[in-house]
Each structure stands twice: as structure tokens, then as C-alpha cells.
């Protein structure tokens, strides 16, 4: 018995409700369906939704909270001596129990934990049965309710559509829920982090070494969480990326909109689209294995000391990745400038280049600026390229030939592998995530509002 079986059973029950109520509505009027207010199938749909939605709600609630409830039950039922040992590290204990429950008894030797894990599995199995029974019960109530409603005068279609409207509205509010979820989880974990590490140390500290002491008496493991080197590294790599993507993307857009023939456009646009569609992990591999060694050997030839994970390699490849982004947004901005402005300028004898610099670019400036802002936000949030091609060691430098690390690299480094949920080390990843989210959000909101304002000026 698994959770997916419940899902299938609820779906089957809903289908049955549909077929049953459809037949029943026909039977009620003795086959003369014109006597019904709603078509028979709407009676069926109505019944199916009344069975499906409550049943699904129960299932989702179980999926969302089931393990938590079972864990709390386990913890309260633990033998006293075990609870005393783990008095303030109850999470650790739960992790051990969970590990056994998920991976089998091979990973653990402690008898009482094995017993707790067995109890976990037992309780969880019971919980699934309870969910099944409960969801069937609410489904049955829905079924009986729908069945009592089958009458010629019942406005089944209207009722069904009202429920459906609710479902549609809920779907669209889910988008808000995602944002709220992001904000809530980031802020919640960050607050827990800032309880351990003062916020000013995080924002203005110059040293990042997220090692925390495992034991209180441990020496030399005092973690420090000054994020400035990470912000600086992110800024440096983003700057390098924009130095590549900005001019190349903008000039590509200018060329494609103003100079290129239709044929060139037909070739160049798909090329840029493919460049945009290449997964970032591929760029990362390319940066780490081709570009970085190339720079290193070129540097050695020129007598420069280039780090094997130089910011330059990561920045350049990230720039290549962002070119299509800049060019397509700038393209839109330039094309949105009314044709009359361009024609007017050309008619006065300006060359195409003069028209571009004196008329088109000033007119398209808000759009282009927002394209650049969105591109910067992309670069700041980009993960795989820097994880694979940039360094791990925090380094406060402006030299692109050295290795730097970024916010995203550190988030990945802190959170890959097993981790405890309440150590400052793990929580600091959420604080970094919050900083990243706020930064990109500001850039995006600013960029989007700029585009919006600009559109109003010409339409």
C-alpha cells in the first residue's frame, strides 16, 4: 500500500461517481433527458469533482504533514534514556531513525533506534491506511451529497462550473503561493541563521569560512560568515560576463535589425536561439575543460600567472551564454521604436550608423537598459558555470586572472551532500539565497517597470 495507490483509488472512485450519476440522472427522468436542466454528463462531472477534490485534499494534507506527525509521535514515545542522550539534538536522532526507515536496517546498530525505525515504518503504514479510509470517507460523503442532488431541476452545470472556477482561481493563486513560499522559507531559515551570526557580520564581514565547531570544546573551528568576498566574486564574474555579452549582444541586435538581410536574419536568429538553449552544465564543462586551460597556457606563454579556475574563464563563458539574452531583448527594444522616427532621420540625410546612435538607441534606451539589467540578474544567479569553472576559495580581489568564488558556488558547496538542518553552516546557504533573491528581484522589478513605462511612451 503506497500513497500512489490511494491516488489511483480516489481517481477510480471519481470515475465511478461520474458514470453512476450520469446514469442516475437519465434514470430519474426515465430517459427523457430534455426534462433535465443540465445534461446528464454535468451531473456526472459534478459528482466526480465532489468525490475527487475532498479525497485529493486529504491525500495532499497527509503527504505534506504525514512524516512530521509520525516523527512527533516517535519522539514522544522514545525510551527516556535515549531521549535524555539526545535531549537538545533531537534532529540528529530523527535523522538516524529516518535513515534506517528509508535504507533498511544495515546502516544502524543501536537497538533502540532500530526499534524506533520499525515503529516509524509501522506508524507510517498505519497512517497510509488511515488516509485511505479518510479520503474514501470524504469521497463517499461527496458521493452521497451528489446523489441526493440528482433531480431534473438541479442546476448541475452551474454548480460544476462554480467549482471549476474555484479550481482555476486556485491554480493561478498558486503562482503567488510559490513566491510566498520562497520568501517565507528563505526568511525563516535566514532568521535562524542571524540568531547565531549577527547580520552585520554577514553583510560586512570580510572573511568567509563556514566551518562550525562540532563540539563545544573544539578549537580552531570558529566559523566566520562574512559574505563580502562572495559578493565581490559574484560581482567580478558578472562584470566580466557583461563585458562580453553587453557589446556583442547589443551589436548583434543592431546588425540584425538594421543591416542584415532577411537571409542573414533567418540564419543568425536560430543560431542565437540554440546558444540560449544549451544547458548551463554544458557551458560549465566547456569553461572548465577547454577555456580555462586555454587561458592558463596563453597566460603562461605571455608570462602571466593565470589561475586554473580563473574568474576570466568563467566570466567569458557566462558572457557567451548571456549573449542571446541581451541580443533578443535589445532586438525587441529596437524594433519597438516607431518606424517613423527612423525614416525621419534617414530622410534628413543621416547615415544608418548616425540614425542608430542618435535616434534609435536613445529612443530604445530604457528597453536596452532593462535588457542589461535582466542579463546581470541572470549572471548573478547563474550557478552551474561558476560551480564547475570558478573556484571554491573566497578571495577578495579585482584581478580576473585569479580564482574567486561566488554566492551560488557557496550555496551549492554548503548544501550538497548530507547536512544537518540547524547548523549555522547549512543555514548560511539560505541567508546567501535570500541575498541572491533580493538582489535579482530588485534588478527584475526595476527592469520590468522600466520596460512598462517605456511602452506607454510610444503606444
Amino acid at each position, binding site marked *: 500500500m503506497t500513497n500512489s495507490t490511494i491516488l489511483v483509488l480516489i481517481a477510480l472512485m471519481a470515475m465511478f461517481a461520474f458514470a453512476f450519476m450520469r446514469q442516475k440522472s437519465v434514470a430519474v427522468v426515465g430517459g427523457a433527458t430534455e426534462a433535465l436542466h443540465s445534461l446528464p454528463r454535468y451531473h456526472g462531472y459534478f459528482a466526480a469533482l465532489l468525490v475527487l477534490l475532498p479525497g485529493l485534499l486529504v491525500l495532499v494534507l497527509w503527504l505534506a*504533514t504525514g512524516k512530521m506527525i509520525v516523527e512527533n509521535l516517535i519522539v514522544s514515545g522514545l525510551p527516556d534514556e535515549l531521549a535524555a542522550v539526545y535531549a537538545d539534538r533531537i534532529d540528529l536522532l530523527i535523522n538516524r531513525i529516518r535513515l534506517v526507515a528509508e535504507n533498511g536496517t544495515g546502516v544502524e546498530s543501536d537497538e533502540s533506534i532500530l526499534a524506533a525505525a520499525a515503529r516509524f515504518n509501522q506508524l507510517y503504514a498505519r497512517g497510509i491506511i488511515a488516509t485511505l479510509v479518510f479520503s474514501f470517507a470524504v469521497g463517499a460523503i461527496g458521493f452521497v451529497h451528489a446523489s441526493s442532488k440528482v433531480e431534473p431541476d438541479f442546476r448541475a452545470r452551474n454548480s460544476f462550473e462554480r467549482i471549476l472556477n474555484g479550481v*482555476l*482561481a486556485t*491554480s493561478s493563486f498558486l*503562482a503567488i503561493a510559490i513566491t510566498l513560499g520562497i520568501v517565507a522559507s528563505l526568511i525563516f531559515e535566514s532568521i535562524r541563521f542571524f540568531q547565531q551570526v549577527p547580520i552585520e557580520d554577514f553583510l560586512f564581514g570580510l572573511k568567509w569560512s563556514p566551518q562550525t565547531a562540532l563540539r563545544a570544546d573544539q578549537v580552531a573551528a570558529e566559523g566566520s560568515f562574512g559574505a563580502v568576498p562572495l559578493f565581490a566574486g559574484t560581482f567580478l564574474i558578472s562584470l566580466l560576463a557583461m563585458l562580453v555579452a553587453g557589446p556583442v549582444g547589443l551589436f548583434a541586435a543592431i546588425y540584425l535589425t538594421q543591416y542584415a538581410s532577411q537571409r542573414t536574419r533567418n540564419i543568425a536568429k536560430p543560431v542565437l536561439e540554440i546558444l540560449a538553449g*544549451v544547458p548551463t552544465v*554544458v557551458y560549465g564543462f566547456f569553461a572548465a575543460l577547454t577555456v580555462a586551460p586555454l587561458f592558463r597556457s596563453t597566460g603562461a606563454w605571455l608570462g602571466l600567472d593565470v589561475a586554473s579556475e580563473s574568474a576570466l574563464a568563467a566570466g567569458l563563458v557566462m558572457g557567451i551564454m548571456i549573449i542571446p539574452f541581451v541580443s533578443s531583448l535589445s532586438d525587441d527594444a529596437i524594433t519597438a521604436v516607431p518606424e517613423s522616427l527612423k525614416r525621419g532621420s534617414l530622410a534628413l540625410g543621416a547615415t544608418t550608423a548616425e540614425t542608430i546612435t542618435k535616434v534609435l538607441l536613445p529612443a530604445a534606451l530604457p528597453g536596452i537598459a532593462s535588457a542589461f539589467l535582466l542579463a546581470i540578474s541572470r549572471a548573478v544567479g547563474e550557478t552551474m558555470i561558476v560551480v564547475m569553472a570558478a573556484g571554491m576559495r573566497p578571495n577578495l580581489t579585482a584581478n580576473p586572472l585569479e580564482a574567486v568564488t561566488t554566492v551560488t558556488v557557496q550555496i551549492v558547496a554548503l548544501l550538497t551532500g548530507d547536512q544537518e538542518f540547524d547548523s549555522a553552516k547549512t543555514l548560511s*546557504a539560505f541567508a546567501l539565497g535570500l541575498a541572491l533573491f533580493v538582489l535579482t528581484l530588485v534588478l527584475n522589478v526595476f527592469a520590468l517597470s522600466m520596460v512598462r513605462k517605456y511602452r506607454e511612451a510610444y503606444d
Partner: protein
Amino acid sequence: MTDYQPFEHEQDDTGVDWNSPEMQARLHRRNIGDRFFRFVGFFAVTASAFFLVFLLGNIAQKGASGFLQTSIEIDVAFDADILPDPTNLEKDAFAAAVAQVNMQYLIRQALTNRFPEVTGRRDTTRLTRLLSSGARAQLRDIVIKNPELIGTTHRVSLLASDEIDQVVKGNTDVSVDEANRKLTDMELGWLQSLESEGRVTKDLHTRFLTSGDSREPELVGVWGAVAGSGLTLLVTLLTAFPIGVFAAIYLEEFAPKNRFTDIVEININNLAAVPSIVFGLLGLAVFLGLMGMARSAPLVGGLTLALLTLPTIIISARSAIAAVPPSIRDAARGLGASPMQVAFHHVVPLAMPGIMTGTIIGMARALGESAPLLMIGMVAFIVDVPASINDPATVLPVQIFIWADSPERAFIEKTSAAIMVLLFFLITMNGLAIWLRQKFERNW
């Protein structure tokens, strides 16, 4: 664009002599400026194209040999004293008995027969390392499949080790000093001797496309990751598609125009630009932390990617729905359809090609996504091919990431080959989207 020429007549009413040398020079300068702009623009486009060609060419050049694998043919004596007798054993019992046999011994015997000059424990170990550690399992399968071989000496083709494979493919430079490479001159001598007999073959490596991950580069396969990607995308599609389309229908057809729907709209646009790693943090905090779902499972990965693709699907579905002309809605309303019937019977079916195109593009993006999946533990070493959405799994891009981190030389070509597989799927999906768009697109 042609250069500007001076006017035909010599003077106009401004009193300026447009044909004067200064004016000619000025015009020349301006035309040069224009040509410069044109050239820089052209250069920018060519540079982008060059980057793409260089990137893809580089990957293809490194990865092509990843689909091939070197095998070495050796004459194995299937010793009847060591191997079980198939005549008085059931099939399963025979297989179990064969599994007990030390195949490494047979391999060592075969190799020392071929190179009788090799003595000493260390050199013999070196000799057996010409072959992959997977050769034992290969030999076992051969015996189980062909019991009649027992008691005979037969020439079988077994996988070479990754170091040998790289030398045969020419990826390892053997001209460097012996101390600076993994293979000694002695081993290379054996290889040469085997090659001169035509015993070293390079074949299509079907294992690469059919098996899961491994620690040994010559034994790895992408199928585990492909299956993981498939299961993950299935979860993503099943959650993001209905919710995204429902949300788009509501926002386009039913939502009252008020402050709240404005907020929803701005919110969706912003969500589309949130870095993907932040969605990974959300998945970690909510699905793993709060709900306690299993780490590394396609279920969690799929749900996380669903959060990520939802804005994309909503935006493209909305524009597809908005493109259906109002006359369709008016006609349906005029015939007595309710607003819900108008939406579901007329507008959505007509918008479906556009919605599908947007969804496929969103799915292609999800397929290439790896950062959020690192957060939720899909970055584990997993040998088994996942069979359900609750099994531990990894996905193709993350597999690429894992292999790219591996130190062995042979993993470079395997990583590149895996990238080629990933790009193949991406191109197929995008091609499908383009085909759908062209086949069903209509201008109202």
C-alpha cells in the same frame, strides 16, 4: 546600404558647397563610420556563431569516441575443473554456481598463457589490469549463456581498462616520460603486441546507452540518468501542465481586472526571472525539510522543476489563449454556451498548439536544468536504473556534472558523449515544438 553620394547640383540655397573637398572628406568620414558600425555588428553575429560552432564542435570532437570502446580478445581456457558442470544442474543453479567461480583466475591464466614471459606477482597484476574490472562479469555472462564452452579454449572479446582504451583512442599522450604517465612502457609493449595480432578492437559501446553509473569510466552508462530525467520530467509535466494551463485560462478568461490580478501578473513575470537555484532552496526547505519527502527521488526533483517551469508555461499559455480572436468567443456565447463552455470547448482547443509549444519548450528547459536538483540531493552516485518516482535517481545534466568532476582521463569523453545525448534530446524536443508551431499555427 550604399554610401551617401553628394548631390548632383553644385550649390543649394544654404550656400554650402557640398562638393568642396572638406565636405567630401566629411562625407567620407561619415560613410566610414557607417561601415565600421556595420562591420562591428557583423563581427558580433559571427562571433556568436563561432562560439556556438566551437562549443558544439569541441564537445562532438571529444565525445564521439565516448560511444566506442576498446576490447581485447584473449584465448580463455574454460577449465572444466573450475567451472561447474552444466549437464547435471538446473539453469538457475548453474548460474549461481558460475557466479561463485573466480573469473579473475581464468582471465589471469589466459593472459599469462599469452605472455609467458611475465612472472612475478606485481607484473601479473599489471597484466590483468589491461582488462577492465568489468571483464569478470562479462566472462561470467558468457559462460552462463554458452555452457557448451566449458572444457574448451575459446577466443573471447573483453573490455579493456580505461587507461588502455584512452591510449588506443589516441587521447593519452604516450610520448611523455614514463614517470609522468599512468601506463608503463611494459604495459604499452603488451598492448602493442596484442595490437599486432589484431586482438584489439574498437566497437560501438552499447553499454554506454543501456546501463547506469559506475566508478569505472569504461563501465558507465547514461541510461540510468536518462530514465531519471524521464521520470523527473513526467512528474514536472503532470503537475506543471494542468496547473499552468488552468492558471492561464483563469487569468485570461475569468479573472476580474483588479489590483489582485495585477499583482498575480507582475508576480508571475518576476518568478520567471528568479534564479533557478532559489527554487532548489525552496524545494529543499519545503519538500525535504517540511514534508520529509525522500531525498534524491524524481518525485521531489520533478516537483521542484515544476515550480520552476510553471511561470514559463503560464506565460506561453496565456499568450496562446489571448491569440484566439474574440469572434470565436462571441459566436459560442451567441449560441448559448456558458463562459466555462466557451473556454473549454472552443478557446482552449484552438489555443492548444500554442500551449503545447510553450510547454515543450518549458520541459526542454527543465531537462537541461541542474542547479536546483543539486540542492535536493539528486547529485548522488546511483548505479541502479530508477524504476519509479520514489527510487533514488539522478538526471542527465547532473550526471554530466558528476562525471565532469571525475579525475580519470576517460571521463572527459564519457562526459562529452553524455552531453551529446542530452543535446540530442533537447534538439528533438525543440524540433517538435517548432514542427507543432509551423503545422498548427494559424493567422486569424
